[in-house]
């Protein structure tokens, strides 16, 4: 249970696996029954009123996406659950799928029905073999119970749902790269438009949503948009799963209503920094998110407020660094990560990250000069502004924010010898 014991969307309990029987006892699959009885438009309207937005990072209104696929005249549509959770610092989807697999499956079934799709995939990363196993078993169980497959709940509606395993590419979490991956090619992004809703998997209209987003749908249909809007704020409704890690007393997964401040999340759930230490910086939104100093943590977890403050909510990962941690090695870690995951398609991302890596290595070995820091700022801009897809654009986030908020650490890392040389030059 979450804040004040109010019922939330996931009501997570760390130890519990919710099997089909328990899930149904708690109201699971009443949403699907309800949706099958009423016209699809009513259910879509409910999601729209609820204000549900994508939880994978982009925060696109879910109902609008469903409608776009639904209103596409082309048949043979697909629904894809994006479970390629690879964002460093994020473990929420792993948790939902291992503990509440049927809430995910019901969400996919609802989304597929509303979008008019009869075939679906759950794209799960290869690093999660136990998740793949649980989902395979759960799909089979749902099929046997008449909740999936041919003629769902006697309605004549069908959905063939399959697991598709990724193979260790972070970029495949990007929706068009994911499509290329299912089609058997390198997981490289495609030009948008056309968007997947227009021309997705095998050029068919495709609805792609994150695990957390889809798992929200049954609760909204079951309890109504009014209930959903009562959690969170007017700007950002419902709850967000937060993967809390790093230098806090209590690490783990938590569900919080939107509107809570980052400081409260760290204090109330993480029980603050370790004894005798203070929070120095926080990385919000995973490796692709920003690195912000402690004073910015009073910002509420809310889409508009965060956008204004330059904070990316992203996947909802919060990684805390205390006052014993230098910033540069952490930024370097992220740059190396993106350099490894860059698909190499576009120059700003591929070469820009390579150069950023060189400069950071120089800084960390005391061989850099202040002109290197200036150069790093220029590369960061190029990476962010000229990259082809979201990977490159996001890769610059931690660079840019750390250059802004922790500039003195970059300057301090410039070797004294080099600084002297520069002054005499």
């Amino acid at each position, binding site marked *: 249970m979450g804040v004040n014991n109010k019922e939330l969307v996931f009501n997570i309990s760390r130890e519990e696996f919710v099997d089909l029987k328990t899930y149904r006892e708690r109201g699971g699959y009443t949403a699907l029954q309800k949706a099958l009885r009423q016209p699809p438009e009513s259910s879509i309207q409910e999601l729209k009123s609820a204000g549900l937005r994508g939880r994978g990072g982009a925060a696109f209104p879910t109902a609008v996406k469903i409608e776009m696929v639904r209103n596409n005249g082309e048949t043979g549509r697909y629904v894809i659950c994006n479970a390629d959770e*690879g964002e460093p610092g994020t473990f929420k989807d792993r948790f939902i799928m291992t503990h509440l697999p049927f809430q995910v499956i019901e969400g996919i079934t609802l989304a597929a029905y509303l979008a008019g799709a009869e075939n679906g995939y759950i794209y799960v990363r290869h690093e999660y073999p136990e998740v793949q196993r649980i989902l395979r078993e759960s799909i089979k169980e749902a099929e046997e119970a008449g909740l999936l497959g041919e003629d769902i709940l006697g309605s004549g509606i069908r959905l063939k749902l399959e697991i598709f395993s990724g193979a260790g590419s972070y970029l495949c979490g990007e929706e068009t790269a994911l499509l290329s991956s299912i089609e058997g090619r390198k997981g490289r992004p495609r030009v948008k438009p056309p968007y997947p809703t227009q021309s997705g998997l095998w050029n068919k209209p495709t609805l792609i949503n994150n695990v957390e987003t889809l798992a929200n749908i049954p609760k909204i249909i079951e309890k109504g948009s009014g209930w959903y809007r009562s959690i969170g704020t007017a700007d950002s409704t419902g709850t967000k799963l937060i993967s809390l890690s790093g230098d806090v007393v209590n690490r783990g997964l938590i569900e919080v209503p939107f509107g809570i401040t980052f400081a409260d999340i760290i204090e109330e759930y993480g029980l603050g920094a370790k004894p005798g230490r203070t929070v120095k910086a926080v990385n919000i939104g995973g490796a692709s998110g920003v690195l912000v100093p402690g004073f910015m943590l009073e910002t509420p977890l809310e889409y508009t407020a965060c956008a204004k403050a330059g904070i990316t909510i992203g996947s909802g990962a919060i990684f805390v660094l205390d006052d014993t941690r230098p910033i540069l090695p952490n930024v370097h*870690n992220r740059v190396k990560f993106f350099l490894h*995951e860059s*698909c190499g398609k576009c120059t700003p991302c591929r070469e820009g990250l390579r150069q950023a890596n060189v400069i950071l290595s120089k800084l960390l070995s005391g061989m850099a000069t202040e002109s290197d820091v200036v150069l790093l700022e220029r590369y960061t801009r190029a990476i962010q502004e000229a990259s082809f897809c979201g990977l490159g654009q996001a890769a610059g986030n931690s660079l840019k924010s750390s250059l802004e908020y922790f500039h003195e650490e970059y300057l301090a890392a410039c070797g004294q010898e080099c600084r002297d040389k520069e002054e005499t030059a």
Partner: protein
Amino acid sequence: MLAMPIMMGMDIFMGTAEIRFIIKQLGGRNAPLLQVLLAVQDAAPQRYLSEEAVNEIARLLEISRCRVYSTASFYSEISLEPRGIHLIRVCTNAPCENAGKQEIQEAIERELGITVGQTTTDGLFTLESVNCLGACFMSPAIKVDDTLYGNLTTESVVSVLDSFRKEQCHGCK
């Protein structure tokens, strides 16, 4: 290139029949390539895609070898080189790095006498690095085959390795 000892009594290359069977199970000529690659790799004795396997997959799916190689070489989870019986993956991302990943990795390297990317001479372990295992709540974390190990220390990681050595030695005198 990695030198791999030939293990006694173990068939290094998969037979055509086995690959054909996997592809048939996954839908025949239209089987999804990435799933075929993963399944063939999983079934291969040294858990990698040999050149012979790549050629065979291309022939059976009626696509070019170049296409198969292009996809196979893109993904981190697919190996084109032979690997040991147990695959150790050390998570390299910031939450694990801050929690002491370097010390854990060095302890493994010391214990096994290999560095990341190498296989022990007895063919028992291959050490690889991996991007985020989604186990940041128990960092530093590693994965051995399909099992996660978290909150590791330089001592506990050695006992994890020992448990795999013992398992392998089960029944030996």
